[in-house]
C-alpha cells in the first residue's frame, strides 16, 4: 500500500522546514575581483571600491560593509562621495552616472541606487563631446560638474541629474575669456582635472590635458587666473590654503604654481622631475599636503625612470628629506591620503596613505617613522598565492583559538600599531556566536588560517610547509634582497605574490583536529605532513617515510613530476604548527583525500593510485592498498605525462580558469533567492535557438570498469562501528574510489597504555562495488539514533553526546549519482535516492550539518547539505534520504566556484566567486553571518531634499547588505535575538557537532574500541 501514498505534503513538516531552512547569500569575503575605482568619504570615513563587473562595495569600521550592483555589467570608472552626505555618484565605462545612497531602514543602513543618468550632447555632436573624464561634486551638494573629452564642463543638478545648461562652462567660453597671449593654444582638449576652491565654493579649477589650468569664477563666469605648462597635464592638486597649485605631467615632472589672480604666470614657481634626469614615466596623481611641522608631504603616483623602472607600480612619499617609493606587486588602480577633515584646521596633517592596487588594498601609516603598513581587518587578499583547497572547522575551542592567534601575532610584527583608520559607521551585528576557522591551502605551499566567525575574514596565522623541503630559493633571501642604498628608494609592500617557486609545493588537502591541535596537510607531489601546535620555537628533524602505493604492481612507470626533496637534518620552525612526520607517496601523485584521527593517532591519505594508513604515534606505516585497475594506464603514468612540462600545463589551466572567470558574469542576477525556478532554463532556451549550426552531441553509454581514474581515492573516513559483527564495534577505515568501490578496513588500535608497544593492525573486512560505478564522494556512519558519529575527541571533551552504540548502525555512501544507506555490519541496502536518474544532476560536495530551528531553541536536525554540478544546493534528510529543499546557488558554468565550495557543520558554506573572493551562504535559519550596520551622518538626518517618488520600488539597481532580508524590522530583530540566544549557548555540552563528509573533510569518531 505504501507505494500508492502520494509523496507527502505534510503541512506540519512543511512548517518545520520553513523553521529550519532558508537560503541567503550573506557576505562576500576577500578582495574584490578586478577593482577599477576607489572612493573615500572623509566625513563618513568610508571607503568605496568599484569593480569591472559593476559592483560597488563600501567598507567602514570592521563589520561595516555594503554592496551594490549596477544593473549594467559595466566597469565602474570613478566613485565620488557627495561632500558630507551618505550619497555617492559612480561613473561607469558606458558614460552613465549613478547616484547611490545609504538609507536607514529598520535600524540598519542599506545601499540603494536612486538615479541614473547619461549625459546627452546636442544632436549630431561627436560622442566624445559628452564623454565624461572628470566628476566634481560641488560642496553645495546640489551640483555635479562633469568634465568631458571635448573640453567642455557640464553641470547637472542633484539628485535628479537635471542638466543645467546655463551653468555649463564650454571650452569656447574659457577661450574667449583668456588673455590674448594664452589664446594661441589650439584646443584645450579634454578636461583632466576639476577641483573646487578649498574654501570658496564660487571658484573651480579646470585643468586641460594640453597643459592649461584655469581658475574659473562660477558667478562671474570669468577666468580668475591661468597657468600654462609646456607638458601634457596629468593631474592637479590645490593646496589647503589655496595659495599653491601643484600640477603633475606626463614627462614625470610636477610644477608648483603660486595662485595670484590677474597676474599672468609664464613660468611655474618651481618645477621638478623627482626621478630625473633620464626620461621618466608620467606622474598621474599628486598630493601636496601641509603639516604642522612645516615641511609638506609630497605623495605621487608614477614618475619612475622609464628605462630601468618603467614597469614598476610605485607611489612615492617625500617628507622632510625622507623619500620612499612604495613598490606594489600589482597595478595601482587609485590611491588617496587620509587627512584632517575639519575645514577649519589649518594643516592637512596626513596620517594614512590608502592604495588600491589591482590585487590588494594597502594602507600605510604616515605618522609612524618608517611608514609601516597597517594590517587591514577586511579586504584580505585571499589569493596572495592561488587558492588550491579550503577546509572549514566550526566551533574552535578557545584554547586553540588563542594559541593560533598568539602564533599569528608573532608573524605580523612588521605591521603598524595604528588603529584601522577607516572606521566609519557602526556594526550592529551581534558578536559571532562561535569561533570558526577557514583554512585555505595555496599554490606556494602555505596554509592560511582565517577567522571566519564574522563578517570580516581576518588572517590569523600563516603556515608555510616550504621549509621542510629543498627548493631553489631560500625563503629568507627574498626579503633582505632589496638593497638599501638604491635610487629610487624602492620598498616592496603588500603580500600579493602570485609566483610559486615550485608547483609541487601546492596544498591539496587539509585536515585539522580542533581538540588536539594536530593538523594534516597534503600536497601536489604526494607529500603528507602531520603537524602539531607548539607555542615555542623549535628545531628538530622531520621524520620521513615513503609510502609505496604500487608495491605489488609490476611494470608501471610514473611519468609525472618527481617527488619533493626533503631538507635533511634538523630544521628551525617558528612557533605555531610544526611538522614532525612527512609521508611521501610513491608515485608522487596529487593527494586526493586525507583523514586524520587524533584519538587513534592515525592519518589516512589517498592518491590516484591507492591509499595508505600511517600511525603517527609510532611513526610507522600500517598498510597501503593499491586501488588501480590494471588497465588504467593514465593513472599509472601520471595525469600530465602527455604534456611536456608540468609548469606549463599548470599555468595553462590556471589561465583557463581565470579567463573563464573574467568572461562570465560573476554574480547571478536573480532577484530573491528562492526555490529553483524554471525561469533560468527559459533564458537558456532562447540561447538554444542559435545553436542549430553545430549541435553538441553527447554519447549515451553505460559506465564501465575501464573508465580512467577508477582507482582515484575520493574519500577517506574513520569510524568506530560494527564492521564485522553486530556485537562488537571496532575502529575502521573506509575509502571510496572514483570507480564506485568502497573498501572497509577493520583496525586494531592498542589501548593507550600499550599504544607505543603494540603495532596498529588493519585487515580488509569489506569491499563494496556500487553497481552504478559512480565516484564515491562521501561516506558516513550513522549511529543507532541515526545521528552521524561525532568527531574524534568530541565526546572526550564533553562536547557531544556519545553515540548510540546499542542500536544498529547504518552506513551512508554518497556517490556522484546516488545516496545509499546500508545496514551494518551486514551491508545490505536499505534506502537510496537516485539523484542523477531523477534530476540529471550529480553530487559535487556533500557534508552532514546540523540545522537548528529558528523557533525552538533546542530543536535541531542532522541532514546532508549537498552541492550539485548544476550549482544547486540541496538539503537531503537523514536517515530517510528525502530531499527537503533546493536552491540555486552557483552558476552551473562556474566550474571553479562549484569545485571550491565548502560546507560548515551548521549549514553555512563558502565558495569562490573569483580567485580572490569567497561568497558566504547559509542554508540555515539560525546560523547567519551577515553585515548589519548603520551609517549616519549628521547631515543625512536633517537633509530633506524634495524627491519624486524615489521609494524602494523605484530603485534602479539592486543593493544588498543584509542578505535578502526585506521583511522589515521584525524579522531582523528576530534573527538578531536568535543569534544572541545562540551566543549564550556556546560551549555548553548540548552543542553537538556533526561530522562532515566528503573528500575535504572526512570525519568523526567516538572512542577507541578495545579488543
Amino acid at each position: 500500500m505504501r507505494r500508492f501514498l502520494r509523496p507527502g505534503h505534510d503541512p506540519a513538516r512543511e512548517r518545520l522546514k520553513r523553521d529550519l531552512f532558508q537560503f541567503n547569500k550573506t557576505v562576500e569575503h576577500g578582495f574584490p575581483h578586478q577593482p577599477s575605482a576607489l572612493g573615500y568619504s572623509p566625513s563618513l570615513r568610508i571607503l568605496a571600491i568599484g569593480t569591472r563587473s559593476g559592483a560597488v562595495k563600501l567598507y567602514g569600521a570592521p563589520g561595516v560593509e555594503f554592496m551594490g550592483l549596477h544593473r549594467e555589467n559595466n566597469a565602474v570608472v570613478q566613485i565620488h562621495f557627495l561632500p558630507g552626505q551618505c550619497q555617492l555618484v559612480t561613473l561607469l565605462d558606458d558614460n552613465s552616472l549613478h547616484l547611490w545612497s545609504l538609507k536607514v531602514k529598520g535600524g540598519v543602513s542599506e545601499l540603494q541606487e536612486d538615479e541614473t543618468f547619461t549625459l546627452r550632447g546636442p544632436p549630431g555632436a561627436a560622442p566624445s563631446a559628452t564623454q565624461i573624464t572628470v566628476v566634481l561634486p560641488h560642496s553645495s551638494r546640489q551640483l555635479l560638474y562633469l568634465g568631458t573629452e571635448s573640453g567642455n564642463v557640464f553641470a547637472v543638478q542633484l539628485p535628479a541629474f537635471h542638466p543645467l545648461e546655463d551653468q555649463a562652462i564650454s571650452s569656447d567660453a574659457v577661450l574667449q575669456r583668456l588673455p590674448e597671449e594664452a589664446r594661441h593654444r589650439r584646443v584645450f582638449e579634454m578636461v583632466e582635472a576639476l577641483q573646487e576652491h578649498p574654501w570658496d565654493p564660487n571658484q573651480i579649477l579646470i585643468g586641460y590635458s594640453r597643459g592649461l589650468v584655469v581658475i574659473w569664477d562660477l558667478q562671474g563666469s570669468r577666468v580668475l587666473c591661468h597657468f600654462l605648462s609646456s607638458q601634457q597635464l596629468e593631474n592637479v592638486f590645490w593646496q589647503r590654503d589655496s595659495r599653491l597649485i601643484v600640477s603633475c605631467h606626463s614627462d614625470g615632472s610636477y610644477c608648483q604654481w603660486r595662485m595670484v589672480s590677474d597676474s599672468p604666470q609664464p613660468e611655474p614657481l618651481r618645477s621638478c622631475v623627482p626621478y630625473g634626469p633620464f626620461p621618466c614615466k608620467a606622474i598621474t596623481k599628486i598630493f601636496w599636503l601641509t603639516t604642522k611641522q612645516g615641511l609638506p608631504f609630497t605623495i605621487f603616483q608614477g614618475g619612475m625612470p622609464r628605462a630601468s623602472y618603467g614597469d614598476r607600480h610605485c607611489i612615492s612619499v617625500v617628507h622632510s628629506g625622507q623619500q620612499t617609493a612604495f613598490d606594489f606587486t600589482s597595478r595601482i588602480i587609485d590611491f588617496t591620503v587620509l587627512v584632517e577633515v575639519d575645514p577649519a584646521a589649518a594643516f592637512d596633517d596626513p596620517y594614512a596613505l590608502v592604495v588600491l592596487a589591482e590585487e590588494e588594498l594597502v594602507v600605510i601609516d604616515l605618522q609612524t617613522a618608517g611608514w609601516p603598513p597597517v594590517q587591514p581587518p577586511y579586504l584580505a587578499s585571499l589569493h596572495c598565492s592561488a587558492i588550491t583547497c579550503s577546509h572549514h572547522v566550526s566551533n574552535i575551542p578557545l584554547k586553540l583559538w588563542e594559541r593560533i592567534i598568539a602564533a599569528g601575532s608573532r608573524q605580523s610584527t612588521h605591521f603598524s600599531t595604528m588603529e584601522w583608520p577607516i572606521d566609519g559607521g557602526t556594526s550592529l551585528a551581534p558578536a559571532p556566536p562561535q569561533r570558526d576557522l577557514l583554512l585555505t591551502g595555496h599554490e606556494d605551499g602555505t596554509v592560511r588560517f582565517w577567522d571566519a566567525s564574522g563578517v570580516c575574514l581576518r588572517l590569523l596565522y600563516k603556515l608555510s610547509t616550504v621549509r621542510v623541503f629543498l627548493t631553489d630559493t631560500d625563503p629568507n633571501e627574498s626579503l633582505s634582497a632589496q638593497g638599501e642604498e638604491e635610487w629610487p628608494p624602492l620598498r616592496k609592500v603588500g603580500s600579493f605574490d602570485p609566483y610559486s617557486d615550485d608547483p609541487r609545493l601546492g596544498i591539496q588537502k587539509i585536515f585539522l583536529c580542533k581538540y588536539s591541535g594536530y593538523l594534516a596537510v597534503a600536497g601536489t607531489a604526494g607529500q603528507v605532513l602531520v603537524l602539531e601546535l607548539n607555542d615555542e620555537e623549535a628545531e628538530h628533524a622531520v621524520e620521513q617515510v615513503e609510502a609505496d602505493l604500487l608495491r605489488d604492481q609490476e611494470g608501471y612507470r610514473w611519468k609525472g613530476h618527481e617527488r619533493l626533496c626533503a631538507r635533511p637534518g634538523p630544521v628551525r620552525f617558528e612557533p605555531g604548527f610544526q611538522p614532525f612526520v612527512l609521508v611521501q607517496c610513491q608515485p608522487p601523485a596529487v593527494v586526493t583525500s586525507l583523514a586524520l584521527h587524533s584519538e587513534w593517532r592515525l592519518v589516512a591519505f589517498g592518491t590516484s593510485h591507492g591509499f595508505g594508513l600511517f600511525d603517527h604515534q609510532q611513526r610507522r606505516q600500517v598498510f597501503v592498498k593499491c586501488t588501480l585497475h590494471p588497465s588504467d594506464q593514465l593513472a599509472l603514468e601520471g595525469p600530465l605525462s602527455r604534456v611536456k612540462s608540468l609548469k606549463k600545463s599548470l599555468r595553462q589551466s590556471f589561465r583557463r580558469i581565470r579567463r573563464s572567470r573574467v568572461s562570465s558574469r560573476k554574480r547571478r542576477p536573480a532577484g530573491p533567492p528562492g526555490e529553483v525556478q524554471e525561469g533560468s532554463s527559459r533564458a537558456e532556451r532562447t540561447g538554444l535557438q542559435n545553436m542549430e549550426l553545430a549541435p553538441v552531441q553527447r554519447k549515451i553509454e553505460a559506465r564501465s570498469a575501464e573508465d580512467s581514474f577508477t582507482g582515484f581515492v575520493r574519500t577517506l573516513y574513520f569510524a568506530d562501528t560494527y564492521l564485522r559483527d553486530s556485537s562488537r564495534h571496532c575502529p575502521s577505515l573506509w575509502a571510496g574510489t572514483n570507480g564506485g568501490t568502497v573498501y572497509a578496513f577493520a583496525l586494531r588500535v592498542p589501548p593507550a597504555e600499550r599504544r607505543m608497544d603494540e603495532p596498529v593492525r588493519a585487515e580488509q573486512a569489506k569491499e563494496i562495488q556500487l553497481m552504478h560505478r559512480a565516484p564515491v564522494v562521501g561516506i558516513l556512519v550513522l549511529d543507532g539514533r541515526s545521528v552521524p558519529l561525532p568527531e574524534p575527541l568530541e565526546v572526550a571533551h564533553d562536547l557531544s553526546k556519545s553515540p548510540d552504540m546499542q542500536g544498529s548502525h547504518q552506513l551512508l555512501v554518497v556517490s556522484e549519482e546516488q545516496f545509499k544507506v546500508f545496514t551494518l555490519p551486514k551491508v545490505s541496502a536499505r534506502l537510496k535516492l537516485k539523484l542523477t536518474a531523477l534530476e540529471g544532476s550529480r553530487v559535487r560536495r556533500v557534508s552532514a550539518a546540523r540545522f537548528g530551528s529558528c523557533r525552538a531553541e533546542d530543536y535541531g536536525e542532522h541532514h546532508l547539505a549537498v552541492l550539485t554540478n548544476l550549482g544547486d544546493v540541496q538539503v537531503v534528510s537523514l536517515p530517510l534520504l528525502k530531499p527537503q529543499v533546493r536552491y540555486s546557488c552557483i552558476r552551473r558554468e562556474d566550474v571553479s566556484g562549484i569545485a571550491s565550495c565548502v560546507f560548515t557543520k551548521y549549514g553555512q558554506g563558502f565558495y569562490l566567486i573569483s580567485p580572490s573572493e569567497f561568497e558566504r551562504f547559509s542554508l540555515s535559519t539560525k546560523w547567519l553571518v551577515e553585515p548589519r550596520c548603520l551609517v549616519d551622518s549628521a547631515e543625512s538626518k536633517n537633509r530633506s531634499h524634495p524627491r519624486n517618488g524615489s521609494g524602494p520600488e523605484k530603485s534602479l539597481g539592486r543593493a544588498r547588505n543584509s542578505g535578502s532580508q526585506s521583511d522589515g524590522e521584525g524579522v531582523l530583530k528576530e534573527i538578531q535575538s536568535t543569534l544572541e540566544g545562540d551566543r549564550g549557548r556556546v560551549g555548553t555540552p548540548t552543542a553537538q557537532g556533526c561530522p562532515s563528509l566528503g573528500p575535504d573533510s572526512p570525519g568523526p569518531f567516538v572512542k577507541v574500541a578495545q579488543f
Partner: protein
Amino acid sequence: MNRSFHKSQTLRFYDCSAVEVKSKFGAEFRRFSLDRQKPGRFEDFYKLVVHTHHIANTEVTIGYADVHGDLLPINNDDNFCKAVSSANPLLRVFIQKREEAEHCSFGAGSLSRRRRPLALREDGPRRRTHLHIGLPHDFRPVSSIIDVDIVPETHRRVRLYRHGCQKPLGFYIRDGTSVRVAPQGLEKVPGVFISRMVPGGLAESTGLLAVDDEVLEVNGIEVAGKTLDQVTDMMIANSHNLIVTVKPANQRNNVVRGSRASGSSGRSSDSIASRHSLPAAHVLQNLPPDEMESDEEADVVLEGVLEPRLAPRPPPGSLARVNGAGLAPGLHSPGREGSVQRLLSSLRSDPRHSLALPPGGVEEHGPAVTL
C-alpha cells in the same frame, strides 16, 4: 578441414557402415566418423570428442540433434548408441562447457530455438522438481516498445534492456528545436534529439530508435527544461534499464490502435514509466525499504580479505556473497561457489572502451586543476 570434408564425402558414398559425425564446439567444427554397428562406449566417445577439440581439461556436456531437431544429451552408453543409430546420415554433436550449459539455458536465443535448443542440462529432471513462483528465470527482458496503450500514438516508449548483453547502448543525443502547438499558434521550443546511432550498438540493433527522434522522457521524467548534459547524465544513470519516450521522426510506423477506450484499462508493464507527472513529484518519490530488494541494481559486497585483482581465478571456497536477491538471472545462480568472482570478472572485462566520460567528471577533480 578441407581434407576431412573430402574424406567425409568418400565415406558417405562408399562406406555405409560408418556414421559421419559433425561435432561443434563454440564456432569450431570437427568431423570424424564412427562405426554405426559398434559405436563403442560413451567414455571413449567422450575422450575422443575432447581430444579432437583440444579441450581435454575442461568439463563439457555433449548433446546431439535428433531427427526432430531437438537437442538431446549424450551422457551414457545407451543414449550414445541411440544417437549413433538414429543418425541420418549425419550425427550432429554439440559440445558446451558445463557451466555455460547451466547458465545460459534455454530461451534466450529465440531465433535459433526452432532448430536446436541452446543448452543442455544434465540434471534437468532434478531441477524441475522445485517450482519457481514469480518471473520465470529462464527468460530475460529484451528491448521493446512498452506502454502502447498509454503513450499517445505519435509517441513511442522504448525500453532498452542491456542486462546480459555486451553491446554498448550506442547512441548520441543533441540539442535542437521542435515545434509545438501552443494557444497562440506554433511555437518553437528547445528539445533533445537522437543525433547518431553507433553501428552494431544496442539502440540500433533494436530498431526502435532512430536518428532525429525527439526525446521526451527518460525513465518517466520529462526532459523539458533540462540541459543536454542533465539528460545525458540521467540516461547514463539509468543505463541498466533505460526507458526513453520519443517522438519518432518517422511517424509512419506508428502503432495503430483499435479503440481508445480499451487502452485505458490496459495493463502497464512499467509503473514508473506510466506516470505522467512532473519531475518534482519524482524527486520526492523514494522506494520504501521493502521494494529495495526487487530493484535489479544490486551492489556487490565482498567480505574478508580478497585476492589481488590481477589473479585470474579465485580460489575455490573464498568467502563471497552477493547482496540483493533479484540479481540479473543471466549472471547469477544462487549457491554456486565462485559465481561472484565470475560476475565481477564479467563486469570488469566489459569490452566497451568507448565509454563517454561524464562531462566535467574527471576534469574538475583531476589532479591538474584542483581547487
